[in-house]
């Protein structure tokens, strides 16, 4: 039985992953809503995860998939903490526009 990689070339995975990553980057840079920024970061993470899985399969090596588990766990934890912070910011300031969050200015 042909593997997915034999049916779809590895380059396609890379292209998709790059597109996803760039989408994430642009989301981070251009959106002002903190939640959208968060989501964009998730997209970037997923782009990398996708790539990891693809390479892992390509090399017949399970290491990449293990990494994906880790990064997903970290991302989940990060979202939990990050959202909590955002909620408390929203309660205090009534907005989550990142341009307004300048309290840590040097």
């Amino acid at each position, binding site marked *: 039985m042909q593997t997915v990689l034999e049916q779809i070339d590895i380059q396609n995975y890379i292209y998709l992953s790059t597109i996803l990553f760039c989408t994430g980057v642009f989301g*981070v*840079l251009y959106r*002002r809503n*903190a939640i959208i920024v968060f989501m964009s970061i998730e997209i970037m993470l997923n782009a990398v995860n996708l790539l990891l899985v693809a390479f892992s399969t390509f090399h017949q090596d399970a290491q990449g998939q293990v990494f994906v588990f880790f990064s997903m766990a970290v991302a989940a934890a990060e979202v939990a903490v990050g959202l909590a912070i955002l909620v408390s910011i929203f309660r205090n300031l009534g907005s989550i526009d*990142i*341009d307004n*969050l300048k309290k840590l200015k*040097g």
Partner: protein
Amino acid sequence: METTLALVLLLAPLAGFLLNIFFGKALGKNGSGYLGTLSVVASFAVTLVFFLQINQDGKAVSIALFDWIQLSNFKLDFGFLLDQLSLLWLMFVTGIGSLIHLYSISYMHDDENMHKFFAYLNLFVFFMITLVMGSNLLVMFIGWEGVGLCSYLLIGFWYKNQDYNDAAKKAFIMNRIGDLGLLIGIFILGASFSTLDFLGLKTAITTTEFSDYWIAIAALALFIGACGKSAQIPLYTWLPDAMAGPTPVSALIHAATMVTAGIFMVTRLNFLFDQSALVQTIIAVVGAVTALVAATIGLVQNDIKKVLAYSTVSQLGLMFLALGLGAYEVAVFHVVTHAFFKACLFLGSGSVIHALHGEQDMRNMGGLKKWMKITYLTFMVSSLAISGIPLFSGFFSKDEILMVAFHSDKTLWVMASLASIMTAFYMFRLLYLTFFNEFRGTEEQKHHLHESPGLITFPLIVLAILAAVGGVISLPGNSWLNHFLAPVIAKEAHGEHHLDGTAYMLMAIAVVGAVIGIGIAFSKYKKNGEVPPADAEINGLHKVLYQKYYVDELYMALIVNPINALARFFRDYVETGLSAVVYGFGRAASELSHQGRRLQNGSVGTYLFAFVLGAFLIVTYVFLMSQS
């Protein structure tokens, strides 16, 4: 037991100091005064015990408290040595010290800081005891520096007067110059002999062969230290200025403690000084010149305490003359008798100043004999003693110095004799101007004239008795002092002076000289009732003497002003330049950080952009590297 006693002797004044400084105010004036006095009296009592003991069995007490410095080839105990020399010194340091303390209770009674005064006085005595008791040069040095500090505190005791502060600083700084010499001497000895212990040094120097050159340098350096403490040329100008302190302080510094430290140190290290004939000559010449110069200045001073101050410098000069001639026991003898009569003279002048409410100019005194009988009589006795009139203590000691000088060098003898004749003259000039003829002060002062209270007159009487009979400790032909000191002095004592024809002739010359000096003073100031002219009318040689040969001005021009100019140069140019550089670094860092601060603008967007840019740059870099 001996250790405990010695510690009591040492620490009693320190305890007095601590109690007075912390609780003195609460104790009240009399309380702090008597506490201070008692602590010194306690030391005196213990000294007496030791003194009687050593007088009987002649065995020195050596106490090592603990190891102080221990190196591979150098070991030093923190210890004390109670031998004949130190006990003799302790006798008059604590004995006369006690009297001066007692006197101060009354003298300082109107001062608001009386407890502080007694604290300093006690501290002074404590350091002097340390100096005298130390068994090695470093312990001695602790005391040496300590008395320097205390003299600074006490001379500047009335610190609200800027002149007095300057006098205190002068004393302190001049002493520091001498102390540098002393330290150099100590270092040379320590490096050469690997010990600073007096007994160890004595064995080392007398038994080992050692370069004369370094011995001479060490001796000379130590002598410079002695010059500073004992006010010899060229470091003597602080002593007359030290008159700014309260009179009991002058008495303590001049008679019993600080200024005798130099004599003590030289006598203590006599085995060292004996090794270098050249240094001994220098000491003798410096002593003789100092004696003469100070005596000439003393001739024309009008401030009652300044006359006494120059007389101290002059007498110290005589002592150094004796030291330089190797007659250590003679110098010590004069130290002792001088302590008696000079303390009496100073306290007497204090009594006069007290009666006149602070007046110190003899031109405004006169006729005090009528009102102050006891002060007058004690002053008279001490003046006779210092002038060298037979049977008073000063006669014996001064005569021995003159005799020693005569036997070694006629020029020195002439100088010393002239100095003593001048002493007789200016002391009686002082006496006549102060106590005889009519009172020249204001009517109001005249109205208040009174004899001083018992606490002041009692020490005067005791000291006057000592000044009168103190000579018995070393009579020509049968000297108790010479026997007593024999164990500490390396060379055989100069031998008892045989009372031959020369000796009688010298005695006669000295006495006739003294009588002539007194006679001139009598005809000038008693019979003709002359009064020294006002400052503006002084001219010629008289003015040169009155202005103390302009030595202070000379030092000012030669040393102080150039140093000041140098200091100003460093302040205005070098320091300005350096601080500009340092300040420039500060400014640069501040400027940079100011720029850097802008990066931290707090906007999450900017941070994210920086983060993406960074990631992009890293990826690009890795990519480019993998291509090449």
